[in-house]
């Protein structure tokens, strides 16, 4: 089986400060990988390099494109990369306001990607928007409301709908439940789990919340100071951590 994403030697620094160093892994279709680590461990830098938001200093991100098979997204032309970014990839930001157009209605937010790839039928776009609002459990009656009138959890679900409407195969998530109430987090996690399963999505989730990765991620990468210190099946890493840092991380979580 061909990996959907094959990452080799991903390295990025900011002057003398190391972002991430020599990170390599393969992600297979339908796999969900978590990346955990403390603030400054390089996990967000890595995610942004993978998603094409940052240019890495070294390394390659080979993506198995629909049309042309495996291609290095680091060296492909910008129009191609941006096209991937709004069709076959999705990016869920921690702050919904970074991933939504706050001045545009919920329907317009969901419809934007469709219009970007050439859909020119209003009724059709609106139909898709209603369908997606339903799938992320937002009342269709809110379709013409702006996201500023939504709760934090609803905004995050709207961001997910906006991202998934084009049927992407790979989703990048940066702390998708960060900043949400615990009760809202659970609902969002359940929703994400269902979407990942039903759409056969592959996903890379950056978080510092071990509970999130336990529920969502098949496998886990633990980062410290820009490097991967441990990598494996999620419950194995969490229940039988091998590296000193992972042991510290796991034992630091308060038990409830």
């Amino acid at each position, binding site marked *: 089986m061909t990996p959907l994403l094959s990452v080799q030697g991903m390295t990025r620094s900011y002057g003398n400060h190391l972002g991430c160093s020599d990170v390599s892994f393969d992600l297979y279709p339908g796999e969900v990988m978590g990346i955990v680590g403390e603030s400054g461990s390089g996990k967000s830098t890595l995610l942004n390099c993978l998603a094409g938001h940052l240019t890495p200093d070294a390394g390659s991100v080979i993506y198995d494109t629909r049309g042309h098979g495996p291609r290095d997204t680091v060296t492909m032309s910008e129009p191609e990369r*941006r096209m991937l970014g709004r069709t076959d990839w999705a990016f869920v930001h921690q702050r919904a306001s970074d991933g939504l157009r706050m001045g*545009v209605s919920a329907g317009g937010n969901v419809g*934007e990607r469709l*219009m*970007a*790839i050439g859909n*020119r039928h*209003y009724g059709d776009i609106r139909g898709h928007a209603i369908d997606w609002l339903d799938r992320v459990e937002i009342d269709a009656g809110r379709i013409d409301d702006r996201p500023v009138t939504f709760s934090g959890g609803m905004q995050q679900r709207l961001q997910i709908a906006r991202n998934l409407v084009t049927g992407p195969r790979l989703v990048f998530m940066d702390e998708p439940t960060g900043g949400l109430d615990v009760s809202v987090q659970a609902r969002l996690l359940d929703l994400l789990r269902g979407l990942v399963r039903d759409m056969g999505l592959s996903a890379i989730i950056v978080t510092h919340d071990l509970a999130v990765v336990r529920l969502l991620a098949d496998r886990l990468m633990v980062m410290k100071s820009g490097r991967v210190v441990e990598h494996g099946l999620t419950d194995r890493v969490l229940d039988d951590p091998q590296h000193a840092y992972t042991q510290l991380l796991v034992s630091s979580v308060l038990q409830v």
Partner: protein
Amino acid sequence: MSGYNFAYLDEQTKRMIRRAILKALAIPGYQVPFASREMPMPYGWGTGGVQVSAAVLTPEDRFKVIDQGADDTTNAVSIRRFFERTAGIATTTATRDATVIQTRHRIPEEPLREGQILVYQVPIPEPLRFLEPRESETRKMHSLAEYGLMHVKLYEDISRHGHIATTYAYPVKVEERYVMDPSPIPKFDNPKLSDCAAIQLFGAGREQRIYALPPYTTVASLDFDDHPFDPSRADHPCGLCGSVETYLDEVIMDDAGGRMFVCSDTDHCETRQNAGYRGKDAG
């Protein structure tokens, strides 16, 4: 006219602007940056259009200026006087007789012909500005022809009003490539942009951009398959000349709410009246 270089601007500046115009004509609809000069009038009064006119005018030209279709409003009169004084050129109010026409917010009703130049005054040249405030991002969107956002604006219109409620500065796509703001002309005028025999030049002074449509350029107004573009006009004949084909202004006549509809293009209306056409309100 002593004391001024021809058409106010120095020759180097005019050459710089002409280069921008030539580039703009070579890439229809693309916004070319230029080093806009301070003009002896405030921004918003047509400084971009005035600089473009200054760069294209020759001593043999006959110059016309309209503001919302009228030759006799303050803005039109002052720009016409400006070039009379600084270029000593002939002026006219007749569309037919003019070789260069500077306009704010209208395209003349009379079809333009080859050899004429129509200069638009543009306040905000960037059609994507409404939804994407970052200039770096809008430039990238133009260069990659990523125009989904433009339809988001139209989508928002329909979702809020049931139809596309944008009535002026209605976005267009030029030769299936660049999305362009046609300046705040009524959407009624949009069809005249396309396949026009004259050269159309757009100048934005404050924003320092020039863009252009060479003669016979295809210009399409953006729309949806199920909400096609509709260049609507008020459903009245002109009160003065009786035309049912022109763009109308609504004029309030008295404190009792009396009103009349008249052509916004004053030259066209007068030409028709002189030819014997009469509307119901004509004296």
